[in-house]
């Protein structure tokens, strides 16, 4: 065929590049949103630190250190808040990307391209995760500079890797939400509920050890809870946790589990949608 000679060899990398460029361009045109995303961890942390001092009085910081092992509540909260935002945005983007594409009419058009559509949704995590790692770095760096405890390049690489691996299972959860809720069109309601549960059980602003064992057991399957724990150890406590590889192995297993579940659920919905005409409903 004539057009084959005009096609690149590594088509999937080309698709990924296209998704990167598209996502960055669209996001660059929502400047206000990004200012809000970058400042929100500070605003929420300020609120929590203020409540902490109001409740704990002069002993607040001492109590905080006893419960968390971290002496700086602002760093602890900003760190947790940044990961919380990253997780919320990843889940929203993946869970709602299909619905949004349906609404603007690009969903079916993606099905007309010679690609595995699930891979296309999966690729969307890459630019979003890159942006969220950048936001995380921008948010945390000022406090680290102020405290004079900057991370080494290796520590930054580990931090970026941990954030990325923590986000992977959320792609699987996002695909499940997308597949189950596209039909009912109430995607935002479901995403908000799941995000609330994940936020509650991830320990962004408090250590999970203060909760009963049943809560800790449920938190075991929440991928972000492990990521938060590793990041707090590396950034706030300035130590590489001894069980980091155990955490990372579990995170990878959770990623495989949630991604497989997401792909199976989505594939099933896709087949039914092609039979019933759901693909084009919006």
């Amino acid at each position, binding site marked *: 065929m004539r057009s084959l000679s*005009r*096609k*690149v060899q590594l088509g999937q990398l080309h698709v990924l590049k296209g998704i990167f460029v*598209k996502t960055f361009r669209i996001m660059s045109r929502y400047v206000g949103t990004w200012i809000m995303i970058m400042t929100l961890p500070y605003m929420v942390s300020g609120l929590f630190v203020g409540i902490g001092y109001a409740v704990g009085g002069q002993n607040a910081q001492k109590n905080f250190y006893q419960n968390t092992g971290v002496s700086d509540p602002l760093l602890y909260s900003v760190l947790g808040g940044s990961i919380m935002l990253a997780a919320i945005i990843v889940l929203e983007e993946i869970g709602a990307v299909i619905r949004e594409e349906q609404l*603007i009419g690009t969903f079916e058009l993606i099905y007309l391209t*010679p690609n595995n559509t699930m891979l296309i949704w999966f690729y969307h995590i890459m630019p979003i995760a890159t942006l969220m790692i950048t936001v995380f770095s921008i948010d945390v760096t000022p406090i680290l500079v102020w405290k004079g405890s900057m991370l080494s390049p290796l520590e930054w690489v580990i931090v970026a890797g941990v954030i990325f691996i923590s986000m992977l299972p959320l792609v699987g959860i996002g695909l499940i939400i997308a597949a189950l809720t596209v039909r009912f069109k109430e995607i935002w309601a479901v995403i908000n509920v799941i995000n609330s549960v994940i936020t509650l059980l991830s320990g962004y602003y408090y250590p999970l050890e203060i909760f009963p064992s049943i809560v800790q057991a449920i938190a075991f399957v929440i991928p972000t809870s492990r990521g938060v724990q590793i990041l707090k150890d590396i950034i706030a406590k300035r130590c590489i946790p001894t069980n980091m590889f155990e955490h990372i192995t579990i995170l990878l297993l959770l990623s495989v589990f949630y991604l497989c579940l997401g792909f199976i659920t989505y594939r099933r919905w896709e087949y039914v949608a*092609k039979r019933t005409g759901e693909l*084009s409903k919006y």
Partner: protein
Amino acid sequence: MTEAVKAMNLKKIYVTKERKGFFKGEKKVVEALKGISFKIKRGEIFGLLGPNGAGKTTTIKILSTLLIPDAGDAWVNGYHVVKEASKVREIIGVSLYSDRGFYWKLTGRENLMYFAHLYHLETRYARQRISYLLKLVDLEKDADRLVEEYSTGMKSKLNFARALLHDPDIVFLDEPTIGLDPNSARKIREVILELKKEGKTILLTTHNMFEADMLCDRIAIINKGVIAAIGTPHELKSMVEKHKVVEVSIIGFNEHVAETLRRVDGVLNTGVKIEDPMSLKMVLKIILRDDEVFSEVLRALVNEKVRVESIRCIEPSLEDVFVYLTGEKLVEEGTARAVARS
């Protein structure tokens, strides 16, 4: 396989839900396609002509792998649309919507570039191709504006350009000129004819008889999921040419008049279109077996005591073929006039 497209006995049923009050709903079964079959030769412009809800878009969606048929088979360039869907997608270009299907916060050019990436087109080639297509559809000047600023016509043209992005051999166009102003519609029609010269095979759906007549080598008249006839515009019109086509404009029309006329011996079919609901002005197309029936029709009209504004014998058009075959009219009169002007 010599045909570019082949459809055999395609059937599709949709199950929809009709709301009955707050919580109750009733399932409704809609038979969108009732076993349609057709073949499209290579390099041909083939039109699916029919009113809204006839099954045109469903047919295109099945052929472009977006929908799985309930029964029947279809092949595009020899590839089965269900079993070899990915191969079909590589060789087809599809334009589905007139003004949807874009990222509003990207420019027209950026939208096309994104889809070029999804089609794995090499970047330098993609840039050249996009510039060529934007020029082809007269969007060059507006290519770097955000799509959110585009008019409906501009979005339609951009949609059309996207369908041609990877230079497909087979192009499916669903109502390509709907919502366009006469000049833009003319431009799109010119491009379609250019594509034919390049040897592309084109399947287009339309309810616009002038467009079908002007562009298509062959036309399938489709109504309520059934193909009523297939042929060249000339062949189709010759079905009616041996009969007489009369257009009657009536004020104070009611359904009883149409029924009475249908019962007149020698009236083969009638199609009714409301022109002005306030004055109950209707245009009635009547296909008569021969001249002798005309006086019977006049007598029936006089007996019905309606105000006849005009009666005229007309040259048969595809619209009349549609009326002859289905007993329904195809397009809004206003639309027809606008198209005629363009």
